[in-house]
């Protein structure tokens, strides 16, 4: 099979990298598949595409993918990606993060990346818990749910990722679940096509910790929940607030490309300062050797 034929296989690293570290049934692999299919549909050049992550189960994703990949430090993926993007505005950059990675330890970087509207496509795998470290509280753990560090139930309210992203200035904001893999793929694609900061929240199952601690069943039951409890934005508009209680609303929450992305604005600074030509030369010199 060739690239362009929806073959994830062509984009995976085969030498030494499998089997993967994820638990059987974990949703992270589905998100990885959606990203790969989106890249494939857009026919992005893997040599000009980077996948950057922080630390966590989600952040193990880049190692399996045959692009320029960087597994950084917990919470800092967007800051590393910002440096790469500004040094190499010609590259497509996808940043994958867990919910804790993106919104707890990395929360500050997240809102500032959105504020700058830097051209990065960030995919947050929201499993509502800290998977890698064994089920501790996350900033997206729903109220009253259990975590190993909230044994009596969580009293911290969950961050609404979409609202936060929109308020902070993201250009594209969407949410789906790992049950809706094609929808995820479509959103990642739109994120990549959007020149600016894109946030795709992918609700995912961590049956191993979150599911177990909260009696939500295994991977299949949690998947079924994503199917049954979720509702499109359109359908949600017709429902009253109390009817939406416990529902997962899917869809595009925001798409505004009127604002210039950060690299474009910095380009204008280089023009003002008289260094635009030199910037071109520098970037060209880093092309294929």
């Amino acid at each position, binding site marked *: 099979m060739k690239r362009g034929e929806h073959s994830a296989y062509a984009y995976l690293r085969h030498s030494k990298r499998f089997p993967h570290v994820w638990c059987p049934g974990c949703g992270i692999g589905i998100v990885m598949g959606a990203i790969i299919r989106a890249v494939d549909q857009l026919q992005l050049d893997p040599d000009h595409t*980077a996948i950057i992550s922080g630390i966590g189960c989600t952040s193990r994703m880049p190692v399996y993918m045959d692009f320029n*990949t*960087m597994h950084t430090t917990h919470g800092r993926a967007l*800051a590393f990606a910002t440096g790469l993007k500004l*040094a190499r505005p010609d590259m497509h950059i996808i940043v994958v993060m867990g919910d804790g990675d993106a919104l707890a330890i990395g929360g500050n970087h997240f809102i500032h990346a959105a504020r700058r509207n830097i051209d990065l496509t960030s995919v947050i795998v929201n499993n509502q818990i800290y998977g890698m470290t064994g089920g501790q509280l996350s900033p997206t753990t729903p109220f009253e749910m259990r975590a190993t560090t909230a044994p009596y139930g969580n009293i911290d309210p969950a961050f609404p990722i979409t609202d936060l992203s929109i308020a902070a200035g993201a250009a594209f904001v969407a949410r789906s679940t790992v049950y809706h893999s094609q929808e995820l793929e479509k959103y990642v694609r739109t994120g990549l096509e959007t020149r600016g900061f894109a946030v795709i929240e992918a609700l995912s199952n961590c049956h191993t910790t979150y599911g177990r601690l909260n009696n939500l069943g295994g991977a299949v039951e949690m998947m079924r929940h994503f199917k049954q409890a979720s509702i499109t934005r359109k359908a949600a508009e017709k429902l009253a607030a109390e009817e939406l209680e416990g529902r997962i609303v899917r869809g595009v929450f925001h798409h505004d490309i009127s604002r210039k992305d950060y690299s474009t604005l910095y380009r204008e600074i280089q023009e*003002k300062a008289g260094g*635009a030509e*030199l910037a071109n030369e520098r970037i060209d010199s880093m092309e294929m*050797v």
Partner: protein
Amino acid sequence: MAAPRMMQGNEACAAGAIAAGCRFFGGYPITPSTDIAEYMARELPRVGGVFIQMEDEIAGIAAVIGASLGGAKAMTATSGPGFSLMQENIGYAAMTEVPCVIVNVMRLGPSTGRPTSPSQGDVMQARWGSHGDHPIIALSPASVLETFELTVRAFNLSERYRTPVIVLVDEVVGHMREKVTLPRSEDVKAIDRIRPSEPPEWYKPYGSSPNDVPPLASFGSGYRYHVTGLHHDSAGFPTDRVDEVEPWARRIFRKIKGSVNHIAQYETDGVEDARTIVVAYGSVARAASEAIRVARSRRRKVGLLRLKTLWPFPTRVIGQVCREARRVIVPEMNLGQIAIEVERIAGDRKVRRVNRIDGEMITPQQILDAMEAK
């Protein structure tokens, strides 16, 4: 040579960075280093580079590493509190062998301390600030011109050895103004990292290579590979095999320690027949020079060993220079962070520490007193 001009240490640092080929700066303002960021914000876009004020120092160093992997020579500048915040990612740069330069214009700590007062309190933090065993290079200039020169050198060392390099400027040097004649940029020797020449399928970003420094491909140059802060194999993929972890760690130490004679620079003044040797660095070395001038006018046999490189520690030269001396004086604006290293080599009975941790400079008189004391 360009025309002579009055310049501040911080300005010379920024000018040196650009002359060395730095094209990316990511950082967060903090006294007394901010002049460097301001200079870079103005000058980098003129030479096709990029300046960004990040949301904090953690992001600053992260962006620097990201940019460096994209092929740009990159730096950040900070002071104590920001340097503390950067530590985890400095370790990441050491682990992933990504060249970058971190300037720390040292102010009096701990904590917020005295933000505008000089100090040399971060010498050990530069060495061991990030967790886990890792090698580091740290340089310390004593004048405005030397700040230019050592910043160029910091870039060259970081590129040559694929490692983070720290420039420890003290606040006195950072803020003092001196008349300097900087070399023209075409006269500055800038070294670039070795990039791979083999076909991408054969490329090993952490493979074995002569002098233990494997070539580094830029992202987006046709070599797709993995970078991780986990222990990794020669291809960059995570590993927990003991036969891969230990050899890697040995190699990254070897690449720095094995080249200590190339990396470590110092200056000596009359150490051959000196009975008393002063070992100093940074602005304190200026007070030491003056103390030595006065002592010599009193016919004392005194010599100066001025360190320009603090890490890797120049063990051999300290041993040589201090062997015959009766007394070794180590003046520092801290409680003996380099003295402890000198004592390790010269024996602690010989060594006299002269310390100051009140944010004031060490005076020549204090050093003279230590020469005269019984």
